[in-house]
């Protein structure tokens, strides 16, 4: 009698053990890469929500730095003291950087002799930059460097390097704007107009920065609407 009762009891134990064993084996937690299915879904077309490039602490003034000129000699930003600066960070492998060079050339020519200077900082090998500058006949001053130029980019607050980015400062070396991405004529004209007003003491620095921010936002919305 005892033996016959023990058989169903053992079956129950086996059943429960098998069930719980499968439940606890953790197969459901196997990591699967995001979006593993190869069939395109509607979700593929949705931009990935994410934080923007890390917010950076832009210095109030242009930090002092020295890099190598195209002739191989050290070149300091201090030599442009008293000038309003357009410091353009770029690289020869960067398409948008190349596209904005003619615009920077024309700005450098148009503002020559008016205490404005365009300075190119190439985060690249000097040989590449020299070859490129010859080919495209870049006439504004260029500096270049690799890790040292990246360190300069970081000093301007751009910790995650991405190019181009351009810093605008007034005659006193105060930073008015940092523009991330390719520059176009309306943006550069707007910022230079504000820098000019700042140099002529027609506007205070906080108001100048606000004017740049609101002006760029307006241009953004105009472009989006157009």
């Amino acid at each position, binding site marked *: 009698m005892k033996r016959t009762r023990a058989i169903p009891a053992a079956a129950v134990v086996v059943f429960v053990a098998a069930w719980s064993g499968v439940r606890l084996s953790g197969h459901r937690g196997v990591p699967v890469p995001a979006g593993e299915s190869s069939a395109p879904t509607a979700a593929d077309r949705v931009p990935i929500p994410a934080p923007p490039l890390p917010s950076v602490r832009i210095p109030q003034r242009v930090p002092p730095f020295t890099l190598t000129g195209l002739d191989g000699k050290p070149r300091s930003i201090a030599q442009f003291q008293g000038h309003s600066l357009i410091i353009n960070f770029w690289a020869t492998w960067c*398409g948008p950087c190349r596209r904005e060079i003619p615009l920077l050339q024309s700005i450098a020519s148009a503002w020559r002799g008016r205490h404005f200077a365009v300075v190119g900082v190439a985060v690249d090998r000097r040989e590449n930059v020299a070859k490129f500058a010859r080919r495209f006949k870049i006439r504004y001053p260029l500096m270049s460097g690799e890790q040292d130029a990246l360190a300069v980019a970081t000093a301007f607050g751009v910790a995650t390097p991405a190019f181009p980015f351009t810093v605008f400062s007034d005659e006193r070396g105060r930073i008015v704007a940092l523009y991330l991405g390719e520059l176009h004529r309306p943006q550069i004209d707007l910022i230079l107009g504000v820098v000019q007003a700042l140099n002529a003491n027609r506007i205070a620095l906080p108001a100048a920065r606000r004017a740049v921010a609101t002006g760029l936002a307006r241009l953004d919305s105009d472009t989006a609407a157009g």
Partner: protein
Amino acid sequence: MLRSAGLPGRRVLAVCIAIVAVAGPAQAKPWWLRGAAGAGRDFLPPGVAFRVSARIVGRRVAIRWDIAHGYYLYRSKMQVAAASPDLIVGRLHLPPGVHLTDRYFGAQEVYYRRVEASVPFTRLDFGAHPLQIKLTYQGCATAGLCYPPIVEVIFPDAYPAAGAAPSPSTASAMWEWLAIAAGMLAFLVAGLVGRRARQSPRPDP
């Protein structure tokens, strides 16, 4: 007593709310950091704009880049190299991309949205080391921003093998139902055996 203690607490709370109200928007949108015109938003960090996943399919590693809307990768800049000991990797097989004519770079092949590539590999370590492959790739935002070449080491072993076996979720579900069925069958058999044992005449002691 309680009322007088509550008042400073409320003031502190009000000050905290004021600080958060003032500091919150300022931190979210720094006044001087602007994206390119027409972008309508700030740029993404490279690790978010270009997301890589990989898995082993037989003797190849399938690598996939998911590219955020408004960003692209250059085909010519994609490279692979062995990063773990005694591993040999072959040539990276890439699908044809979209032809983009750049004024300065000429004709370029780029990928939007997604690209799936594969690379053959041979392990001479009999699986002693985790499989590591070094990827190099480079991309830009169409709004006019480029990231320097990104170098990343991937671990395809971390993901289950695909292709030959059913997917892990299907496999686990199958085993689960098999165990339930086996348990039920065992229960039924045990019940039948018990019944037969009760019905059969017992020999006298």
